[in-house]
């Protein structure tokens, strides 16, 4: 195993005390003693989520990157699966022809075949969050925190206490998230700054500027709103909620759903969580989606931070392009003209939920779904799921 600090490659006997014989620094993990990960795997995962140190990231992203690496490792025996399958077929032929020894072999190999098949088809994570947390604590003890991990600073006062005029202005667009940690990811990476964008969580984070920013958003009748969320019950209802609640954007702005939904699930197998509740259709969720959400959840953190940021840029640019085209094609009336949300219904159904007419009808006009944001290029090398799956 290689030491990630000095690069020295040592045998297990040389590092039985958990210390590198070359630099005398501690290893965080020892796969030979049953740890599911090595220091090198963790290090590679950190480099991946931080885009080689150029992006700020949250520990949840690291969790999923480690899970992804473990899943990739377990998927490797696909070749074995094929070989075992062929041997089973040969043995089966032998057994049919009455060879007892072959029948015995069959007893061993057929369960092996099905176990490998199970590995291949397993959708949920291989490492629980609790186990990961323990591993992460050990990593911190051995290596310390990475400088690009997001650490919130305690908020002492609202910026408005210093700047009296800030509340008079507004934003071109808003991204509303279902989780505070997604807000952290975007803000810590200056997404708001690069896109003149408010970033809030639906539950009120960040607390300091939250109410001020929400009032500021009301000052722009041409606001663009994006909902960014997990594929969970709460997440999949987010866009609908934003479009229909008076405290948010009812009657003011169309909401574009750019979050994860069940229709995006395919590239993320192996990273699902088990759902703990039975989900019913309605509030922006179709019957088909409800079925999936009753079995699984998929967190946005399963996507690398770099990809989330890139997809959000893409979603915003699509909106800008659409508006530029619309401006060129049509003449609008003036600053106070409010977007007519009933004139131009977006499709909410995407590839999912041809049933659930109730929800679909409510989507029309108020909401649109940017189904491309995470799924369209998932097969590209740089796609929505890291070329994963």
């Amino acid at each position, binding site marked *: 195993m290689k030491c990630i600090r000095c690069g020295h490659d040592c045998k297990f006997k040389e590092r039985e005390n958990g210390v590198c014989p070359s630099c005398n620094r501690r290893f965080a993990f020892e796969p030979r003693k049953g740890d599911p990960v090595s220091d090198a795997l963790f290090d590679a995962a950190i480099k991946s989520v931080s*885009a*080689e140190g*150029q*992006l*700020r990231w949250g520990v949840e992203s690291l969790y999923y990157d480690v899970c992804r690496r473990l899943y990739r490792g377990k998927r490797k025996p696909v070749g074995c699966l094929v070989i075992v399958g062929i041997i089973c077929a040969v043995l089966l032929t032998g057994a049919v022809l009455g060879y007892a020894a072959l029948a015995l072999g069959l007893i061993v190999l057929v369960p092996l075949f099905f176990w490998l098949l199970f590995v291949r088809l397993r959708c949920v994570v291989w490492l629980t969050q609790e186990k990961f947390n323990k591993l992460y604590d050990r990593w911190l003890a051995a290596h310390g925190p990475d400088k690009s991990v*997001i*650490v*919130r*600073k305690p*908020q002492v006062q609202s*910026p408005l206490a210093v*700047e*009296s*005029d*800030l509340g*008079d*202005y*507004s*934003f*071109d667009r808003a991204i509303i998230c279902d989780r505070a940690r997604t807000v*952290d990811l975007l*803000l*810590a*990476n*200056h997404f*708001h*700054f*690069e896109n*003149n*964008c*408010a*970033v809030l969580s639906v539950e009120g984070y*960040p607390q*300091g*500027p939250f109410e*001020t*920013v929400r009032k*500021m958003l009301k*000052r*722009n*009748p*041409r*606001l663009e709103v994006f909902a960014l969320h997990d594929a969970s019950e709460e997440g999949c209802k987010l866009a609908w909620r934003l479009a229909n609640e008076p405290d948010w954007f009812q009657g003011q702005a169309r909401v574009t759903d750019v979050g994860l939904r069940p229709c995006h699930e395919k590239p993320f197998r192996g990273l699902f969580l088990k759902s703990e509740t039975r989900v019913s259709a309605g509030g922006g969720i179709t019957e088909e989606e409800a079925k999936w959400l009753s079995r699984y959840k998929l967190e946005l953190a399963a996507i690398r931070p*770099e990809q989330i*940021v*890139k997809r959000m*840029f*893409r979603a915003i640019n699509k909106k*800008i392009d659409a*508006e*530029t085209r619309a*401006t*060129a094609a049509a*003449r*609008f*009336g*003036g*600053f106070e*003209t409010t977007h007519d949300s009933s004139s131009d219904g977006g499709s909410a159904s995407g590839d999912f939920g041809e049933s659930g007419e109730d929800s679909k009808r409510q989507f029309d006009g108020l909401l649109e779904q940017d189904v491309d944001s995470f799924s369209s290029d998932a097969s590209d090398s740089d796609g929505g799921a890291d070329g994963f799956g």
Partner: protein
Amino acid sequence: MSGICGYVGNAHPDVLERMLDAIDYRGDGKEVATAEGVGLGYRWWTRRPGKSPGIYKEGPHLVAVAGTFAPPLDNPAKSLMRRISPNIDDSLDGAFAGAWWDGQKKRLTLIRDPFGIRSLYHANHQGVFYFASELKQLLAIPGIPAEPDFVALHKYLTFSFVPGDAVPIKGIHRLLAGNSAILEDGKLGIALYFNLEERIDPQFEDQKIAAEVIGTSWREAVAKRLNGESEVGLFLSGGIDSAGVAYFLKRLGVKTRAFTLDFGERSVEKEQAECVAKKLEIPLTHVRVNGSDLSPILMDLVWKLDLPFGDAVTGPQYLLCKAAREASLSAVFNGEGGDQFFGGWTNKPMISAQLFGDLYGEESSEELYLRSYHKFYGLEEPLYSAFFKDQVGGPGTRRAHLKPYLQHEGVSTFLNRVRLADISLKGSQNILPRAERISNAWGLDARVPLFDRALAEASFRLPTQLKLKGACEKFVLKLVLQNKLPPEIVWRRKYGMNVPITDWVLGPMRQQMGELLGLDSLKRRGYFKPEYVQNLLEGRNDPHETRKRRIGEKVWALAMLEAWLRVFVDGRGKKPGGAT
């Protein structure tokens, strides 16, 4: 157009000829005047209205002025003495740089216009004080060193221009906009004579009054910059600022010909420019620009720009000016300044950063402002070689350029503090000097009516909500124009002019970029890490960056710097091959 130079001390008068010859594209006439221990030089286009017809001499006084006042006077040099002595006239405005030698008091006074359209540099060499309109004139002085100033280059890589009084040649300084300098008894004293102050006027709470006052000032600002030309040019982008200038030129009955950039299918505002021209019945010329058009002009552009300017818009602007010159025009108006004075889109990122910026506790307003230039701030580690880092020597003083504005205690609103920073840095040290030099490259006078003293002062009397109303930018300008131009021009949401520079530098300009920034060139210069630059040249973005345009912007900024180093450090500012 036009330029001046001079010295105080024991210099050979021939040096004036050398300094004037270095800017032979600034006019067909030249004159030198000397007295004991002093010499002045002046180059100008004869037969153009509003220019000084030569160096003004009156008793012991010698005065040389490049440029024009607003409103214009027949002989700026003659009137300069009276307008700046004993005190500088409060209404002094225009695009000028002047030098006045008082032989009685043995005193030299230098002065630049309030916003810095005209430039003035100075240096001490072997006991002689020299000054000139362009850097290349100072480099024409025999023996003056042309060593790069690495701290200034470091700033260029953040701002895309060099801010402050330093220039990227050691020992040469510039007089900042709105400043005057007095050299007496060998000592140089510099004083600010113009700065903007926030004086919010309650009567402007009434939008109608505000729109009337700003509309009147805007019209007068355009009128003050007319100089008797039979026809003027206008760079019409399709945005509200240049559209407004077009409207007022039309109202003033000025024969105008408009020019707009055409990037083919990558054009952003072509239709809007056409719409304005049609509405105002102004002839419009589309200037088609592609990457292949820029390669042949690159070295001339770099030479004429005089200082390194790293924004990709300079190439297309050069071709716009060429088209205006080919149409036999001598003056061109533009709409620069609307964003800076009236709350353009550049405020928005700073507002956003101010609201959310304190959550993770690592970046000040100044740092975020530096980031907004989208060049190499924060990328020093991957870009800078060990040698370059050593030469820079530390984090530098980039933030210090912003503090006087962003932490200005006399300005009550955040928006106006950001405005001040934008006007003083981006406006006075980037947009205006480069516009003047690009226009001058084609013998054109740049007229920038939104950088007008009275209009600027009026803008700082407005409540900030009339600049940025909600998310609506430049609201008061829209009120001024709302019944005068089509609503889709006035109320359109602005996305900025995007020069398709990435397509160009990775496409038709690839060979030239490869020569300027290839391994051989980088190794010879030794400033940058080749792997970082190669990544950009191969079209790969920084990992945290998604916008393709940033690749081209960075490649262009680095290429312009390398070209500038070749012309001004290696070549001491002499006319390079490829220059016209």
